[in-house]
């Protein structure tokens, strides 16, 4: 990472300075948060704790240049009382944006989100998941890139060159929400001899046609999802080793809006990835899709109720590196539409082949002008021993986050 940062500054800072005639504005914003996690059930593995407290900070520095170009820096740091792997630093964003009449060029570290569905984010391939942050895989590590974007009447074309790879984070020995064996991120393996310096590429075409929004992309390079093999750590303990293979992936995302209905689909075809049995390549198709219907002004109030139903599929079935290989999900989203922006989301993911299910509740609201409070409850029920999440079966979680925004 150090080498990457040096390279970035060597390239981007002079460019940023060249582009700078007069700075229009500097802005510092961001948040600090305190988080408490409680695990009502006793841990399954030695060393795991029943609770944890942590502190995180994410400032954002934004510097606008005369022509609309800009420079953004967003570092992130978390300190966790229980899991040393969760105590971590990341550069979420360090980007120079060159805004030209004909294109946008972004150099640096960024996060790119393409998904349309609510329960599973399948098509996103640019960033690695910051898994220690949250089990929902919505937190991402900043990805170094050059991204050239052309927005035209015929659609938007995005080209990505990804020169450096960030390894996914995994909970450590004392962390909950992990496999029986710890994933030893210090012993990550790569198929490519260039390891994390393998250059990855992606191209995406996206467009809006009336009520349809869609995107189609091709990615070639290091898989953002590791396959796994086993080994031993320095002390001779058995551990899981993440293996980052070379893949090619085609992905599609579609949304269609009609009245109060929002229809969504994400699908991908991936070549070159192993499965739960090991590293042997098993090309596969995965898809998720469904709808979100919104009842507005329910019971004569200002509140909106969204009903989400989605299907989750992975044709590797029982060998998929995901618990969501043949599952249905339902969720209710209540937007109170009050001054505090109160929201409530309740969801249920049910495995079709077994009794395994996963329930979650997320509630959030603003306190005063600058504070937000968020409650999250997750529970894993009736996971059979063969389930991908069997090791997490007793990791039901109650999480409370208080954020101050500045």
């Amino acid at each position: 990472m150090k080498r990457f940062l040096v390279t970035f500054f060597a390239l981007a800072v002079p460019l940023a300075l060249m582009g700078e005639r007069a700075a229009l504005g500097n802005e510092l914003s961001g948040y600090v948060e305190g988080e408490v996690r409680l695990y009502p059930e006793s841990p399954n593995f030695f060393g795991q704790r029943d609770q944890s407290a942590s502190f995180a900070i994410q400032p954002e520095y934004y510097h606008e240049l005369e022509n609309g170009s800009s420079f953004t820096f967003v570092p992130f740091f978390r300190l966790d009382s229980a899991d040393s792997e969760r105590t971590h630093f990341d550069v979420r964003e360090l980007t120079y944006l060159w805004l030209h009449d004909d294109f946008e060029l972004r150099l640096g570290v960024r996060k790119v989100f393409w998904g349309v569905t609510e329960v599973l984010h399948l098509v996103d391939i640019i960033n690695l998941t910051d898994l220690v942050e949250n089990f929902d895989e919505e937190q991402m590590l900043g990805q170094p890139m050059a991204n050239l974007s052309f927005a035209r009447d015929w659609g938007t074309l995005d080209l990505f060159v990804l020169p450096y790879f960030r390894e996914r984070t995994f909970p450590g020995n004392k962390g909950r929400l992990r496999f029986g064996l710890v994933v030893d991120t210090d012993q990550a393996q790569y198929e490519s001899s260039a390891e994390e310096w393998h250059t990855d590429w992606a191209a995406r075409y996206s467009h809006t046609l009336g009520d349809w929004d869609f995107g189609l992309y091709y990615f070639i390079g290091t898989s953002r999802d590791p396959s796994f093999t086993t080994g031993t750590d320095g002390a001779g303990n058995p551990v899981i080793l993440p293996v980052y293979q070379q893949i090619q992936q085609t992905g599609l995302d579609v949304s269609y809006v009609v009245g109060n209905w929002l229809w969504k689909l994400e699908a991908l075809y991936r070549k070159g990835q192993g499965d739960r049995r090991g590293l042997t390549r098993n090309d596969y198709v995965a898809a998720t899709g469904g709808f979100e219907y919104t009842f507005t002004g329910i019971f004569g109030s200002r509140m909106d109720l969204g009903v989400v139903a989605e299907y989750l599929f992975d044709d590797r079935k029982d060998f998929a590196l995901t618990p969501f290989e043949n599952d249905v999900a339902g969720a209710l989203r209540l937007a109170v539409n009050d001054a505090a922006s109160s929201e409530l989301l309740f969801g249920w993911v049910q495995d079709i082949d077994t009794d395994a299910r996963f329930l979650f509740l997320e509630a959030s609201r603003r306190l005063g002008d600058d504070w937000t409070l968020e409650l999250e409850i997750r529970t894993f029920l009736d996971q059979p021993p063969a389930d991908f999440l069997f090791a997490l079966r007793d990791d039901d979680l109650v999480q409370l986050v208080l954020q101050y925004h500045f």
Partner: protein
Amino acid sequence: MNITKVLIVGLILVGAGIPFSAAAMTPQEKGLAIAVEDDKRDNGFKDYKADAIMILKNRQGDESTRYLRFKTLEVQGDGDKNLTVFDKPRDIKKTAFLSFTHSLDNDDQWLFLPALKRVKRISSSNKSGPFVGSEFAYEDITSQEVKKYTYKWLRDEEYQGHKSFVVEQVPAYENSGYTRRVVWIDQDEYRVLKVDFYDRKDSLLKTLTYDGYHKYLNQYWYPDEMYMVNHQTGKSTQLSWKNYTFQTGLTDKHFNKNSLKRAR
């Protein structure tokens, strides 16, 4: 009676300097002619940017404040394109809202959520829903097009020292939260001074009053203050406008999903 015909009638009347009290028109024709004239006078601004502060107040007097920035691009023959960016509350800073408004069809709307870097297409049939928790509904802040309503002139009336038309407007689009709006428009400059909103049961729901009108580009009147009070809940929203700038050179390029993601 179609709009072109009324437009011609209206233009002839205005051009000839004949007041609308001309006996030949029905109240419906007269209401429409007023709307057509109002629309004509608002036409041609091309684009503008403005900052806004919204103060939400409940019956107990508790306040909550939002800072927003608006960009609008005029689209001839259809509704305008709008980009709204939030500055405060700080937890929704950089959240941005893009809409392509249409006269009768549902608007096209996208929301950018900065924490996830996600652009989400959203359903726009929620026209009666509150805009960021305020007393303004989405349908109150989208561009006003002649085709959006059917009209009926009710009477002429003095309102706060202005000779005004009082016109009833019935939404012609679907999913409105209103059976009708009653609008006070001053006869000299065609500025909207006041709007009464009637809910689906036809009870008086809200009143919007405008204040501090200024003339821009020697033609276009825009208010500094808009005050919406909900008579049924006692809640109110003060919307104050600042830093209007017109014809800033905005084009379609400033109103796409790329610009939504980097909106500031």
